[in-house]
């Protein structure tokens, strides 16, 4: 196949992956809402098919451009899809019960890929000389993995905040101080109301589980992110002659690092663990997104390879 037809195949496969993820997300959502197990199994199958298409998109793109397929924002977005979904499937194989979170994992992957395909798509092409280094393999791969994992941690933190709020509201009011028939009747009524309210969110993992999940995910992503920054510094040392120069991309990756470091500390600090820590993770998510979307396109710097 020629480079041009490979590139076209890649684009088609990428869209196929997006559509598969949307369908799979919908199936997971329906399973969640209607408790039909076969929907979830079907969702899983569609996810695997989508991942295959996604891998195919990256491979054909790589073959079309004769280099690693993560040289610009469009290609980066495709790899984000692979990392997120493959990571989710791997994890699912160890803990099947997290399938109910499938829709929340697929949603960010779909958003990233669709945005990449609609806004940042660039024709297949070679790299500018500054990017021609074996460090692009290490640094960018680590950056994609680290940022995807940290974003997922923040998604779990968002779910935690929602669930925590619901749990707080559902908790029956403190038992009345005066015992008596009327009071008991009140309490029964409250409990019935609580039971009626129980909906989709009751089927989500508990707030504690989500909080723990968010922490585990962040603790997994943080060392990868740290490594990505260090690898970037080594690359910068050989490409630009300095390992750190407060280029906007470097600055924002440092900001994200600091915020997630604060999150990890907050989890062990009285008065911060729980809701405040979750908000820190969400701030971290915002800095990661800003770093990828705004710094690449709006802010002028050495990393402006978006267009």
């Amino acid at each position, binding site marked *: 196949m020629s480079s041009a037809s490979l590139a076209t195949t890649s684009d088609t496969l990428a869209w196929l992956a997006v559509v598969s993820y949307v369908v799979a997300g919908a199936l997971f959502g329906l399973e969640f809402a209607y408790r039909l197990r076969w929907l979830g199994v079907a969702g899983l199958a569609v996810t695997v098919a989508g991942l295959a298409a996604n891998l195919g998109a990256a491979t054909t793109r790589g073959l079309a451009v004769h280099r690693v397929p993560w040289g610009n924002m469009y290609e980066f977005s495709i790899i984000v899809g692979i990392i997120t979904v493959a990571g989710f499937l791997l994890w699912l194989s160890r803990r099947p019960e997290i399938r109910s979170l499938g829709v929340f994992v697929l949603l960010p992957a779909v958003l990233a890929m669709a945005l990449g395909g609609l806004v940042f798509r660039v024709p297949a092409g070679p790299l500018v000389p500054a990017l021609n280094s074996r460090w692009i393999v290490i640094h960018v791969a680590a950056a994609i993995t680290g940022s995807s994992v940290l974003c997922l941690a923040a998604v779990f933190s968002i779910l935690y905040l929602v669930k925590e709020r619901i749990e707080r509201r559902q908790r029956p009011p403190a038992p009345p101080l005066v015992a008596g028939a009327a009071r008991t009747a009140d309490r029964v009524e409250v409990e019935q109301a609580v039971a009626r309210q129980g909906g989709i969110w009751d089927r989500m993992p508990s707030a504690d589980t989500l909080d723990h999940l968010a922490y585990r995910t962040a603790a997994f992503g943080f060392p990868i992110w740290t490594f990505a920054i260090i690898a970037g510094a080594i690359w910068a040392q050989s490409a630009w002659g300095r390992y750190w120069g407060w280029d906007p991309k470097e*600055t924002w990756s*440092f900001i994200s690092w600091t915020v997630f470091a604060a999150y990890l500390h907050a989890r062990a600090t009285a008065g911060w663990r729980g809701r405040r820590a979750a908000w820190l993770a969400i701030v971290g998510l915002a800095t990661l997104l800003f770093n990828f979307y705004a710094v690449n396109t709006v802010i002028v710097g050495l990393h402006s390879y978006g267009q």
Partner: protein
Amino acid sequence: MAVELRPPAARPDRPPRRPGLGDTLRLAWREYRSMRTALILLVVLAAASILGSLFPQEGISPQRVDQYFGDHPALAPVLDRLGLFDVFGSAWYMAIYLALLGALVACLVPRTRALVRVLRSRPPRGGDLARYRTRAAFDTPASPDQVMATALRVLRRSRYRLAEHPEGSGEPQWGAQVGRGELAGEKGYLREAASMLFHVALLVLLVGLAYGKAYGYRGQAAIVEGETWANARVGYDSFSPGRFFGPERLAPFQLRLDDFTNSFYANNTPRAFVSHLTALDLDGRPLQSQRVAPNRPMTVDGVRVFQSDYGYVPVVRVQDRNGKELLAPQEVLTLRDPASEVSNGAVKVTRSTPQVGLQMVLFTGLRTGPDCPPGMDFCNDPRLSRPVLVVLAYQGDLQADRAQSVFSLDHSRLRPLGDRPLLLPPGRSGRLANGMVVSFTDLKQYSVLTLARDPGVPVVAVGAALLLCGLIPSLYVTRRRVWVRAVPAGPGTTRVELAGLALQGKAAFEGELARLAQNIERGTLGVPDRPG
């Protein structure tokens, strides 16, 4: 001297002691080294860094700072006073990270002390095992001594640090019988040690960074093909030394640009640019030769030489109408536009009256009409295929005594000379409207190199490596305590009780303790362990 162990009884006639300055300071110190302070300082550091990315920075893009001053004449000086154009070098940014480092050190000292204390003491007794959430128990025909010996072996293999506490502790026991002693095990000290390594590594990294900044330098120099450049302060177009870097420390060498090549892909995007450099000693003896390209620096005498930019140097000669030389063949440094590969430069002829200024535009491959994208009369091929120098002449007062750009003319006191520009290929001459002859005698390239010396790099590298080494165990190693007791429970039966405490990874601990119990049970029965 006798030590008063009990607090003195409060006297009714004296009010309770008011906290003094010492107490306040102690309290402030305690607060300063708390995790909460570190947390807040981290968030403040992140917020301060955002400012550095929102405003143009002097150290990164001074042109954009100048532009900001032009665009916001009222606001810019205020921002400048606040240090917002040099956030990362400003006093307040330094104050934040020094406060953070101080808190870090203040926190490390008591943590080190605590870790040493833990490592020097034996794992403590478990006390009442019933109060632990994670427990396991089984009955075995083996004797209590056999059980304890097996437990010792099993726990040691699971890398627990162990202590045997003799019987008769007098503490309440879990189970009816009085204990025959217990085995206490603890592991996971690596978590705390690694966390401290991580924080120490951060300090090492910052020390290396500061050291490199203070004793290193960075500069840019342009070398024209075929020429030799000496590593001296005057040779640099821009030079930023560290605080303690003296120009006399510049390594004694010269660089010769033997050749410069650049190439493009079919879609006209740059493919590569390479400087063929030879380093020479001061007597001109060659030391080494290397192709220097982006991502492929060269190291000479501890100085790293990087390829950063390039441009074109037309050689221009100007004569008057009688052939008298007004300007000997001169290398004109031009500024290249990376998007179009078109370069701009200027020649100032001050020896004629009136003075003549030549604005020059160099095309690397001038194309016209059908070769260009639709709607364009002419365009440029980035490859050096058909170079053409376009010369626009002006006459009047060049105001050469005033500071001005070498790449352009000050048009305020100039008027056009003639109505059409000269288009010169290399080796050709053209006559201006006043009879002057402009010759485009040769075309060369120049290479812009960045030279940098940073003696802090090895320290920073060690710091970064230690940082990663510390980070992973500090997040994944889990601290555990386990207690094992064996008490006779009737004839030929021993009741074995295990309890444990997990500070992290509590979910997995239940299974771990069950496995330990199982392995001890199997050990006492002489059955091999279950793996995992």
